[in-house]
């Protein structure tokens, strides 16, 4: 599983961090998404998909 983010689209809602805290974080200053890993472990797969579904800015793309 690979995950990509589009920081220009991100609106800093933090939904992804709630869904998959081991995969996503937010920049301390502007709250924009940062990736802790771009290859989530199987244990984080559901949460990563959930983050992509719930992202209100379509800033997360999950493949594989």
């Amino acid at each position: 599983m690979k995950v990509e983010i589009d920081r220009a689209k991100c609106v800093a809602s933090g939904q992804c961090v709630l869904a998959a805290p081991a995969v996503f974080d937010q920049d301390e200053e502007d709250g924009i998404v940062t990736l802790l890993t771009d290859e989530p472990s199987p244990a984080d797969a559901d949460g990563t998909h959930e983050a992509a579904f719930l992202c209100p800015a379509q800033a997360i793309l999950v493949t594989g």
Partner: protein
Amino acid sequence: MRHVVIVGASAAGVSCAEELRRGGFSERITIIGDEGHPPYDRPPLSKQFAAGAWDAGRCALRQESQLEKLGLEWHPGVAATALDRQGKTLVLADGREIGYDGLVIATGVSARRLSGYEPSDRIHYLRRLEDAARLRDAMSSAATVAVVGAGVLGSEIAATARGLGLQVTLIDPMPVPMLRQVGPALGAKLAELHAAKGVEVRTGNGVTRMEENGACLLTLSNGSAVKADVVLIAVGSVPNTGWLASSGLDLSDGVSCDEYLRAGPDGIVAAGDVASWQHLGLGRRVRVEHRTNASEQGQAAARTLLGERSPFCPIPFFWTDQYDVRIQVLGLPTATAELDVVSGSLGDDRFAGLYYDADVPVAAVTWNMPRETRRLRLALCGQ
């Protein structure tokens, strides 16, 4: 259940379809939307799209390949016009009839019209992509804009128009912008922000008359006049329930649902801006027109259709970006709630606070501190 029909092809409808598939539903899903475009996202319409920075493609809700994978039967560009619950059948605008076993109502809302003021070259409402394109084009050749209604949408458009270099007047009968969403203290701060950016803030004034004659001439309740090349009217929204008038469903506040989002006992659920539901956490019926709610509620409605019984009680969340300020609100600040700033101070350009009603935290706000929003969520969840 062999066939689920989703009426409404925006955030709630699409997320419902995705959750049905994730939940293992492999039978037919039909999705009906009265707009002809592929599903798109609305938050950019008042900001990046209206400013001309993003095109429609950038506002797409999903990539084409993602939608294809869902294996949906699409009926774009055609509205549902009636629901026959006995026959479990929908009637479409082109006369077709579609049967269903499970029905999802996700028809959203429309911009509330001021009577007597139809959309024109100068008078605009904003809900759909076409509205936003017309407004964008009108603003590109205008010098002055009047925004009637200083809620979230009106305030965002004021900021966007100002960013384009237009002269902007922001008008609302309430004393400050976004009063109902953020309360008086933060509303006053927003009024200061807009004024500092050069917006003529005329809150505390309704519009008593509007004439179109070369430009638009607005008369306000204090007797003052505002002349504008373009007027955006953003005075709230109306749930799209007209097509359900004879269905027998309770339409007293959008489509009224129970705590599981069921609109009736007969396999009908609702989600998104159109749906009000009994929120067990808040202890009252609410209808929430926030972007994140549409996705979450679409998912929850899907799970109910699949047989789960878990009440839908999220903490409502919205954000608004105006100029270089990012505001996020969790919960629903009540009219009597008092804002207690817990990080920074109201005079700073970054701060965070909790709203208390009778000593109970009911909502949280952050101003340029988005990461803090997640921490404050815990304070609200502690209830």
